[in-house]
Structure formats: structure tokens, C-alpha cells
């Protein structure tokens, strides 16, 4: 869908993007993650053609990114707002027209969205008469009304109340199921990782890692497992060449919980075989690192 190749963006005295490349597959929910100041917004603004890259190229559906693609992209910026003294419907129709829709078509689609999101009574109201949550719904409609193939959402859930956030999230996922590619950008990694099929992490203007969420997790999994057992007292589990225990057992709800890490070349079955006669198994669970942990790990190692 979108191919970013060696993009460099320099500001006056710092480099915002240092030869960043990434591939955003069609139909994916792509998480663009990284701490504040990593270069996420710079990259998003380049994709939206608000600013230009100093060097490097971007391809949109195998075509060099150009002005005509603007109508195929929907953008919800982090700093978002509306004209306060303008009517809700007028505003949505205006923004849709700027994206290339005809007035008639824009009104028709706006009506459909208003019905769907239960906003019909707001049609003639001024934006300043709406609550903040209502305004966010209006912004959402304005972002998606031209049926973009690519949606770019910069910190989409900041400032949303939980109910609206949930509703908007579901609408986005719904659009994704209909084929819209979505880029989520956030500095709060845990907030989007459950939604994303793919991620890229930016740190200090460089891309640290990129790929399918499941692949990344597998790649960074340390082969750790959590063993829960139900014996009367804690048992020293060491003594196998297949694994070693990490730290001491914790007691959780009257059961013992012990973390173990497999040694290279061994399977979890080897560990289970060793443990079987020793403990009363209650459960076993792989410890999958969160994106947040992977990120912190990466920053520490860098």
C-alpha cells in the first residue's frame, strides 16, 4: 500500500528522520510507535504531503506519492479541531469537498454517517454548542467521509472519553475489515498494540524494528514460561539441563508461581517431563513480551 524508502528529513539543527524505510501492507493496521520526538509526526506529515522529505521516496500503491493521492488518504492529526462558529453539517460537507467529493455526494454520505453514529440532531448546530466528545465524533466523520484507502491517525485516542474511544475504535476496525489500511501513531505503545497487525518502532529519528506483531513477539520471545503449581510448599525446580528458574517462586492466590527460561536447544516438553514427577501442575503459560517491553529492551541495548 505504502512504501517508504530511505526518507531523510532535516530541521534546522536536528535530523527528524534518518533514512527511514518501511512497508505498510494493504489492509493492515499498522502501528507507528515511538516516544515523543522520535519523528512520527514528521513522517506522517510527509505522507500527507504537508511537508516534503529532503531525500528518499514514498510510493502509494506502486505510484510515486503525488497530489492526486490526497483524496485517497484520510488524516486525523494529533492537533485537531473544527471551526467553532460553523455549522456541523456545513463543516463536514466543506471538508469533504476539499477532499474532492461533490456537494451532493458529501451531504448524502454525511447524513448516512450521522444516522449511524446517532448524531442526527446535531445537523444544524454550531460546533461550539457541542461537547468535546461530540466534536470528536464530528472529526471522525470528517476524516473518513471520503472513503479513503489509507487512514492515518495520529494519537487517535488522546482526549477521548472511554465510551467514545471504544466506539471510534470499533468504527476504525470496521473500516479496516472493509479493506481500509490504517496507520496508528502513538507514543503509548500498549494502547495500540492489541489493534495492530503490523508495527514499526521509531526512536531518535531511526527505525528500530518493523514487522508483523506476531513475528516480532516470537523473535523477541526469550523462551520464558510461567509454571503454577499447587504443592504444600515451594519446591526448588532447578536440576534440569533443559531450563533454569528465574528468581524465587511467588505465591498467587495460594498457589506457587515460578518463572523459568528454557536453555537453547530444548523444548518446553523437556521441562515438563522433568517437572512432572516433582510438582502438582496447575498451569503453564508462555510469557510473551509486550511491545513496550521489547521497545524498552531495544532502547537499553542500543
Amino acid at each position, binding site marked *: 500500500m505504502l512504501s517508504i524508502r530511505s526518507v531523510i528529513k532535516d530541521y534546522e539543527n536536528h535530523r527528524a528522520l534518518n533514512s527511514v524505510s518501511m512497508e505498510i501492507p494493504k489492509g493492515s493496521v499498522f502501528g507507528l510507535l515511538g516516544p515523543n520526538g522520535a519523528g512520527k509526526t514528521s513522517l506522517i506529515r510527509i505522507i500527507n504531503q504537508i511537508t516534503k522529505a529532503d531525500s528518499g521516496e514514498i510510493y502509494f500503491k506502486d505510484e510515486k506519492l503525488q497530489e492526486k493521492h490526497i483524496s485517497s488518504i484520510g488524516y486525523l492529526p494529533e492537533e*485537531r479541531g473544527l471551526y467553532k462558529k460553523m455549522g456541523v453539517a456545513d463543516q463536514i460537507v466543506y471538508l469533504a469537498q476539499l477532499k474532492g467529493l461533490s456537494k451532493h455526494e458529501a451531504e448524502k454520505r454525511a447524513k448516512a454517517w450521522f444516522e449511524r453514529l446517532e448524531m442526527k440532531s446535531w445537523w444544524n448546530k454550531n460546533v461550539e454548542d457541542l461537547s468535546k466528545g461530540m466534536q470528536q465524533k464530528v472529526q471522525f466523520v470528517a476524516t473518513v467521509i471520503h472513503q479513503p484507502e489509507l487512514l492515518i491517525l495520529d494519537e487517535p485516542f488522546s482526549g477521548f472519553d472511554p465510551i467514545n474511544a471504544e466506539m471510534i475504535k470499533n468504527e476504525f476496525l470496521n473500516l479496516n475489515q472493509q479493506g481500509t489500511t490504517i496507520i496508528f501513531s502513538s507514543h503509548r505503545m500498549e494502547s495500540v498494540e492489541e489493534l495492530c497487525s503490523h508495527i514499526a518502532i521509531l526512536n531518535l529519528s531511526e527505525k528500530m524494528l518493523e514487522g508483523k506483531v506476531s513475528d516480532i513477539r516470537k523473535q523477541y520471545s526469550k523462551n520464558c514460561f510461567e509454571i503454577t503449581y499447587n504443592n504444600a510448599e515451594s519446591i526448588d525446580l532447578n536440576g534440569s539441563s533443559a531450563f533454569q528458574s528465574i528468581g524465587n517462586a511467588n505465591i498467587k492466590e495460594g498457589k506457587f508461581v515460578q518463572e523459568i527460561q528454557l536453555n537453547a536447544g530444548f523444548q518446553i516438553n523437556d521441562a515438563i517431563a522433568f517437572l512432572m514427577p516433582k510438582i502438582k501442575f496447575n498451569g503453564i503459560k508462555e510469557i510473551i513480551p509486550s511491545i513496550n517491553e521489547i521497545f524498552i529492551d531495544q532502547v537499553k541495548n542500543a
Partner: protein
Amino acid sequence: MKKIALIIQREYLSRVKKKSFIIMTFLGPLLIAAMYAFAIFLAVNSEDLSDKKKIVVCDETNTLSNIIKSNTQYEFEFSTLSLASLKSNFDSSGNSYLLYIPQKSKNFEGVQLYSDKQPSLAIVKYIEDQLENTLSDQKLAEKGISKKIISELDFDLNIETIRFTEEGEQDGNTSASYMIGMFSSILIYMFIFLYGVQVMRGVIEEKNNRIVEVLISSVKPFQLMMGKIVGIALVGLTQFALWVILTSAITGIIGQKFAQDKSKLMSIEKTIESNNSEKNEPAIAAGEVLNALSTINYPLVIGCFLFYFLGGYLLYSALFAAIGSAVDSESETQQFMMPVTIPLIFSFIISTSTVVNNPDGPVAFWLSLIPLSSPIVMMVRLPFGVPTWEIITSMLLLIAGFFGTVWLAAKIYRTGILMVGKKTSWKEIGKWIFYKN
């Protein structure tokens, strides 16, 4: 282009639909008409309005009772009492002034005017004039020149000015040129200020609302800026056109009402004329002005007016847009406004003083070529006659100046609108100009 048209449409409609626009459109002409009516009312009724001022005169020379005359405003009463008793009775006498002329005054030195308030300039001038005339009459009489000869010396000249033009000799009228020039330049000055600031406010509003980033993901910053400038220009032209129509309609009605009372109008004209001749200024009869107004090359003046009107506005509003983009709120605009408003105010002041008095001088020449001042200065010069090559050069320079400022403003604008929550300095704005996109 289609997007700019959409932006122009929004900027225009959102402003024209505002209550404040509708109120100002109707209130403006009413205010002008009300002022007009009030002026006529004052002219007609001023004599009834002001109380006659009583002035008691203590004339120790006993020669002036025939010379200082009462008029409609001042009533002089000559008293035989002494100055001391007049002074002590002043409060209870009901007189407004006490004029004292000492016995041994040579050439009326030592004349004093007492009152409980600071006397108005008008009465002081009135008394001084009377005494000065008396003195000069006396001196002339002493030299053997009779009053008859003096009255023959009272000339009222009105020089006819004729210009050599391509169509042959033409009557010129300096006063008419003056009026037209001043009126146009005041209008242009007001238009630039009123609507230029609106452009700035509009930009700040979009920045404050945080809608600007949404917009520029659909349109180019340049399109957004130009759409706003043109849209607001159309608002200004609409308001201006409505004002002209409504004002002429209302003043027409008022004029008719007063015309029914012709004698009163005549008396106004007379008082105006007599006032003028008293100040030794040539009175211009209304007919003469009308005659001169008809000699002015209207297609040229109106054409140039529209050109400089729009050219000046476009040039300045681009700068105002750049200022708006560099700040977060209107209170921060002060430091950036100065360099933009100073050339504007400067050219207005110069054009109403230096240029109008010497429309072909070097100051007028250069200022009517420089794009920042030409819209205002050239309009003052134009009715006096300006060589064609100067007009063309000035227009070309204004067009070039417009493109230059728009280019500069667009560079500042596209960086400025995305800068939120930072205090901007001049140095930074300078750097923005050299940013690549």
C-alpha cells in the same frame, strides 16, 4: 483552482452571514446619514441652540460704543460704572464676560477680558478683529485714505486653473482634485486596515481551532492563504458596495426632505459663504465644484482606484496573513504588526500633507512608485494629473510587489501555521523564509 474557489466561498459566506456583518452594513450608512443630518440640523439651528453671550464693556476711552457691535451671538453692553464696581458685581450681573479698555491705551494695549470660565477662542478673535479693524481704519484715515477706497480694496479672487491635456485645454480645479484624491486614499487606507486585520484574525482562528492541519492535508498552505485573502476581499467589496448604495439612498431621502425647506438651505449656504469670506478664504460655490468635478477623467480615476484599492489590500493582507501564522493569539501580534502598519500610516500621513501640497515633488514621485506606499500616495496624485509612464511603472511595481510579498508571506505562513505553543521571534521568521518545504 477548484479548491481555492471552495475556500473563497467558505470565507465569504461565513462572514457575510454573520450578524455583525449585517448590522454593520445597515448601521454604517445610517451612522453616516445621521452625521449628515446632524450637521445640517446644527447649521440650521445653531443660532437658536447657543445662548446669546452678554458682554459688559467698561470703556474708559468712551469712543468705542459705535465700533464694537453686537451680533447674533454676542451682545455688548456699554457700562458707565467703574471697573472695580463691575468686577465686584460680576457674579450677580448675569454677564458672561467683562471687557475692559483702559483710558490711556495706545493701539488698544492693555485691553482685558474677564470671565469666570476660560473664554472661547471665537469671542477673543471676534473682539480682536473688531479692534484691529478699527485701528487700521483709523491709521488709514490719518493718512488720508477714505473708507470708500478701502472697500474697493476688498478683492475676492478665484484663479482659474487650466491644464494642457491630450484633449486640449481643460478647466482644472485644485479643490476638486484635492477632495477626490483625499477621499480615495482614505478609503484605501481604511480598507487595507479593516480587512487586512480580518485576514490576520482568520489565520489565528484556524491556528487556535487546530483545524489548520486538517485543512492542509487536503489543500496547499498557499491555496488556503490565497483563498482567505480573496474571500475577505470580496466581503469588503460587498460591504463597500452596499454602503455606497444604502448611503446614497438614505442621504437622498434626507436631502429631499430638507430641500422642501429651501429658504433654510439658502441661509445655510449664505452662512457658509460669509464664514468663508470672513476668514479670507476663497469661497467655492457648489456649482463651480460640480463643474470641476465633471472635468476629471473618471474612467482613469475609477479604474486606478479599483486597481490600487485591490492591489494595496492584496499586498498588505498577505503580510497580515504571515503575521497571523506566526503567533498563537492576537495579543502576541503587536511586535510583528509594527513594521507592517508603519509604512501604511506613514504613507497616509505623508500623502495628506506633503503629497497633496506638492503632487509632483520628489517625495510624491518616489512614494507613488514604491509598492508599500503607492496605493495610497498615487491616488492623491492622480486627480492632479500624472504622466502615463509613471502610472504604468507604479502599477507594474505594485504587481511585482504583490507577488514578492505573497511569495514571502507564503513561506512564513506554511511553517508558521504548524508551530503551536512556541513564542516566535523575528530571527525565527527569518529562518522560515529559507526553509525548504
